């Protein structure tokens, strides 16, 4: 997916997807959406670089566990819960309060990525994933 960063989704549509996710999930503390190359398309707050770095580290750690790349990651600790989802060449990462409903959170993340990836599907872009 070499041209994922230049293809749609644009930063604007990624920001809209992030806003959707934030609105749908009351337990959400923050989230970010990355493209297949690991570049941040949208992130909560102002420190997109920190989101990108931490999200890439999480996905790299997940891939360390198994030769097959993980599609979903769910880490629960004392300080909160972390979700990551790869879908159609995009990545969503979210941090929630403890005891957030995992299935709902992942459903919302998948929905946001699906909406974001739709224009690209219609344009015939390929949806591979590098990160």
């Amino acid at each position, binding site marked *: 997916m070499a041209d994922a960063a230049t293809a749609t989704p644009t930063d604007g549509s990624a920001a809209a997807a992030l806003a959707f996710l934030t609105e749908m999930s009351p337990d959400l*503390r*923050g*989230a970010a959406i990355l493209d297949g190359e690991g570049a941040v398309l949208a*992130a*909560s*707050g*102002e*420190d997109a670089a*920190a*989101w990108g*770095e*931490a*999200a890439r*580290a*999480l996905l*790299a*750690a*997940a891939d*360390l*566990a*198994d030769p*097959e*790349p*993980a*599609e*979903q*990651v*769910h*880490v*629960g*600790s*004392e*300080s*909160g819960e*972390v979700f990551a989802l790869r879908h159609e060449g995009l990545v969503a*990462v979210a*941090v929630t309060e*403890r*005891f957030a409903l995992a299935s709902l959170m992942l459903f919302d993340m998948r929905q946001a990525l699906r909406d974001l990836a739709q224009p690209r599907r219609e344009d015939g872009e390929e949806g591979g994933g590098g990160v």
Partner: protein
Amino acid sequence: MPPKPHRVLLDRVSGYADEAAAYMRRRKIARRPFARLYYANGRAAEADIDSDAGVALFAAADRLVLVAGNARRRRT
């Protein structure tokens, strides 16, 4: 004298709510940190907390929690 029918219903609902609250309390106290990975073919695996991958996963997750905390502080 038998209780009024709505009392029976209320008692039953209260009983369920009490049980649910107790379950949530137990879950909150007893739950340990975990890292679960799900794969495209439907397979799921739990990363051992002491393995290299587990340590890396928790470290990365803690960093994300920190970043999200900072983002939330800026938002409010």
